[in-house]
């Protein structure tokens, strides 16, 4: 590569501007927050509760939906079926919907007049203003991240390995659990982390379903509208730090060997 060419300078400047755009507001927020205010916020029971609520609800939602989303991802990666393109489109739909609109849709579904709401009501469950409702709203907007990442993971597993396992006498489910799943594991965990992080930061859809109990994004919004920027800022900083910490920890867990990239594969004819 030719160094110091005008093109490289332009690349450098443009890239720096984009990075600066992401970092500057965050840094500014951190710098504007006094340490004492931060400590005060951390020890605030409401803040603690809402952050804890956000983390466990998002994690639980991700975990339970993964049980269905991962097999769906395998189907999308391996099977051919009519209207597959449509199914893929449906899965991506939550990404393009305005999140408040998504929230309204979910609300219609889980309110006492909605289908799921009626079913739940008959066994004495309600979703509105409950963690279960928050979990559904979070999952609705964040599921595509897990499904798509897991699908890419399964697609990258050489089909020959699955075929070989079949010829060696493995059942379909054994092939899935002992070959496909372990080999796609890296993509699945990274999709899991993405879905968890996306669910955790969701505001629009959740606020429609449940203002209370307050998840962290709702609490930040609440403090901003009730008390102003100064009060919203420390809470934001605390939540960002927690979110970053969780994100980093989860990213480090699947840092094991990536089986598929460790060895070049010959192509079959």
């Amino acid at each position, binding site marked *: 590569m030719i160094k110091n060419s005008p093109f490289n300078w332009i690349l450098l400047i443009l890239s720096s501007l984009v990075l600066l755009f992401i970092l500057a507001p965050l840094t500014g927020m951190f710098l504007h927050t006094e340490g004492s205010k931060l400590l005060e916020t951390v020890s605030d029971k409401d803040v603690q509760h809402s952050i804890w609520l956000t983390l466990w609800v998002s994690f639980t939602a991700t975990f339970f939906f993964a049980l269905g989303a991962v097999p769906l991802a395998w189907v999308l990666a391996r099977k051919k079926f009519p209207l597959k393109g449509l199914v893929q489109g449906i899965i991506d739909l939550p990404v393009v919907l305005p999140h408040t609109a998504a929230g309204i849709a979910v609300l219609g579904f889980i309110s006492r007049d909605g289908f799921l709401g009626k079913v739940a009501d008959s066994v004495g469950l309600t979703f509105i203003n409950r963690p279960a409702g928050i979990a559904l709203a979070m999952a609705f907007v964040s599921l595509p991240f897990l499904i798509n990442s897991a699908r890419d993971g399964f697609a990258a597993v050489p089909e020959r*390995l699955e075929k070989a396992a*079949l*010829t*060696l*006498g*493995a059942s379909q489910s054994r092939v899935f659990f002992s070959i496909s799943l*372990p*080999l796609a594991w890296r993509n699945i965990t990274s999709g899991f982390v993405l879905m968890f992080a996306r669910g955790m930061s969701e505001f629009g859809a959740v606020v429609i379903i449940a203002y209370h109990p307050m998840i962290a994004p709702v609490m930040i919004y609440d403090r901003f509208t009730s008390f102003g920027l100064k009060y919203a800022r420390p809470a934001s900083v605390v939540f960002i730090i927690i979110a970053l910490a969780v994100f980093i920890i989860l990213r480090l867990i699947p840092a094991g060997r990536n*089986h598929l990239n460790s060895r070049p594969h010959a192509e*079959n004819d």
Partner: protein
Amino acid sequence: MIDVNKKLGNFALSGINLEIPEGEYFVLLGRSGSGKTQLLELIAGLYAPDSGEIRIAGKDVTRTRIQDRNIGLMFQDFAVFPNMTVSGNISFPLRCRKYSHADISRMVAEAAEKLNIDHLLDRLTNNLSSGELQRVALARTLITSPRLLLLDEPMASVDASLKDDIRRIFRQLNREGLTILHVTHDYREAISLAARVGVLHNGRIIQEGKPGEVFRRPENEFIARYAGIRNFFRVKLYAEDGSWNAVTGNKMVISIPPDEYPVEGLLAIRSEEVKILNILSAGNSQKNMFRAVVREIYPSETGMEIILDAGEMIHADITMNEFTELNIKELSEVWITFSSEAPIVFSGKELI
């Protein structure tokens, strides 16, 4: 296989009839894209044929589940599972069949010892050599004692130096009674291993027989090329005084075995059949004797490959001894000769 048809995308295996007696080593030749891999996958049960029947030991297994067919298939790139150790790979079929721990460790140890990989058992597979990977794949396939072993291009992914070892293992397995169907694009594998060979082309088996027959008397140009024949000429054919001649585009007149021929055809001569004689040692009175100039000399597996200009470019394979005796180099003038039985003539419909 009885009249098996299978359409796969825009490709089809059609009218495949293949019978392999128990204990036979059958090699199926075909170039990439001829449907070799698909044929093996059909037999193994990864796909069901659109029509036709697959029988093993007289029993129809066309719709039998893969697990119940008891067929071993070794993939071209071995398909060793990268998320398991060597012993994890070898024991996989046993774990699928719910063997006891004691049986598994005993059988894995036996299989590993037989293939000389017992020192690798605890290793992960990502830094094994191709030869080691192949042994792992073979041990894994053989551990359930399949009654039919399918080999997909087993020599294509191993180093040349290991091929002799592998061949020895396959021969040994076959001698022990294992029926083997081996697919390859390399006719030399067929010659060295097969009791019978078949040639697969465009989804059809176009010739079948003992290797000697197929390679000495190929039924068409495609098989001839497969059999490693490099001398091909478009010729016009005519009879003169009761014997037949073929004349090439560059007016080389070649005497051919008496038969009924059309006016045009394709003539092939095995390069081993072409003899080179020293310019001083013979006259030019015989049939099929031509003056030639040496153009290129290459070392070959069996000795030397000489390319000569005798009006047409002709390949000749000679032994190292012959080469030293002839004392030829590029631009040497020599005689070349071959018997009138050597040329193989393809005519009319057989031309592909």
